[in-house]
């Protein structure tokens, strides 16, 4: 417990979290502070490339084992199953319509890559090793949740649902973030430590500084979302936004322990299962379920669950993973 408080305190006063808090505060105070759209895009490209590359280098250094395939499979199953839990919980806890509940549920089966990047950064600063292939697991967990949500709508007689056509499937699977993450992972894997040595001054040293700026932008966006969509956050909806990541993390924990992952790997599996998408899934929902309320799922995912995971969730998941693996 002491470890948990110490981790949480360290996390809360880290430059990364404080940058996010600054963004939220500036946005809530209606400051005109903003990160230009193209700059924010460049920062996200940098982070995805760096995290993918480093994951690939780690796999090159430690080799692959059967756990990689199992972890990928487990990630896909978690991504497909968590929306069913989220959907049930939403229907039980809130007055959300079936359509809105399914759309929100999709977000909670999919993942937030920024939460994953932030968790990786916390693990690195604490010297906790993690399996490099967790980057590939992150990419694999992006899409199955969307299929589950569409199934939930179709099962309830959602005749108006556009469903998953070939074009939408291609857009999701070839989403720029996934292509960059997996591509950088493969480059890192192919070039190994030597490749990393060549570009480490670019992708290792500046990493945390760039992450700070990116989280400042995320804070601005989250604050704006809360300001504009805060009205939809009833106590029960808000409670779901905090409860569901804990349920997801518990499912990720059980899965990672069964797979025998390292403390870092267990933490990352918890983070992936606990986080909610706000990039790929909202776009897919706008195409497939346009009648679902976007401010509901964006505000919940970005305004509630993302800050919760970033500030309290990650230290909690690290502490639990360390306590249960003896790491």
């Amino acid at each position: 417990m002491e470890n948990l408080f110490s981790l949480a305190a360290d996390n809360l006063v880290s430059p990364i979290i404080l940058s996010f808090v600054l963004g939220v505060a500036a946005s809530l105070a209606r400051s005109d502070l903003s990160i230009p759209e193209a700059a924010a895009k460049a920062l996200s490209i940098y982070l995805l490339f760096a995290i993918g590359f480093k994951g690939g280098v780690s796999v090159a250094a430690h080799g692959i084992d059967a756990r990689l395939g199992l972890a990928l499979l487990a990630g896909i199953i978690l991504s497909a199953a968590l929306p069913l839990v989220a959907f049930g919980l939403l229907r039980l806890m809130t007055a959300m319509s079936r359509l809105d509940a399914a759309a929100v549920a999709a977000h909670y089966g999919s993942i937030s890559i920024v939460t994953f990047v932030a968790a990786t950064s916390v693990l690195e600063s604490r010297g906790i090793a993690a399996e490099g292939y967790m980057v590939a697991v992150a990419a694999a967990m992006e899409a199955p949740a969307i299929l589950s949500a569409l199934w939930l709508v179709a099962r309830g007689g959602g005749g108006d649902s556009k469903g998953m056509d070939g074009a939408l499937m291609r857009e999701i699977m070839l989403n720029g973030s996934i292509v960059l993450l997996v591509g950088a992972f493969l480059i890192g894997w192919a070039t190994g430590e030597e490749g990393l040595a060549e570009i480490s001054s670019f992708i290792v040293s500046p990493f945390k500084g760039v992450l700070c700026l990116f989280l400042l932008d995320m804070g601005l966006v989250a604050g704006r979302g809360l300001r504009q969509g805060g009205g939809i956050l009833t106590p029960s909806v808000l409670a779901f936004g905090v409860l569901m990541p804990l349920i997801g993390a518990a499912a990720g924990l059980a899965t990672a322990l069964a797979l025998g992952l390292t403390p870092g790997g267990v933490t990352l599996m918890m983070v992936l299962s606990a986080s909610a998408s706000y990039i790929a899934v909202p776009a897919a929902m706008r195409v497939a379920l346009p009648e679902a309320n976007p401010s509901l799922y964006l505000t919940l995912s970005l305004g509630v669950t993302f800050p919760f995971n970033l500030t309290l969730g990650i230290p909690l998941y690290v502490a639990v993973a360390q306590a249960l693996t003896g790491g």
Partner: protein
Amino acid sequence: MQTHKAKRVEITIEAVMQSRLTDALKKAGVTGYTVLPVLGGSGKSGEWSRAGQVSRASGMVQVICIIRPERLDGLLEGAFAVVERHIGVVSVTDCDVLRAERF
């Protein structure tokens, strides 16, 4: 200078639907259109702004095409099939163009 009657169709739609809309326009025989980014606005779904959106799911674009009047019905039918269930605005105005052969 000689001018010719034409129809200007402006479709403001979610960015995620842009390629689907332009595909539908091409199918309806529209060969020329212009896509503009939309900075922000306010409507039935509330106020929004392009600045700082983390997801393109929240962005909007405007597709503008200028066509001969006889092509209007085909265009609107094709476009409506795409935009029907989505946030957006479709408007048609009369306009004059200088070089009719281009439309």
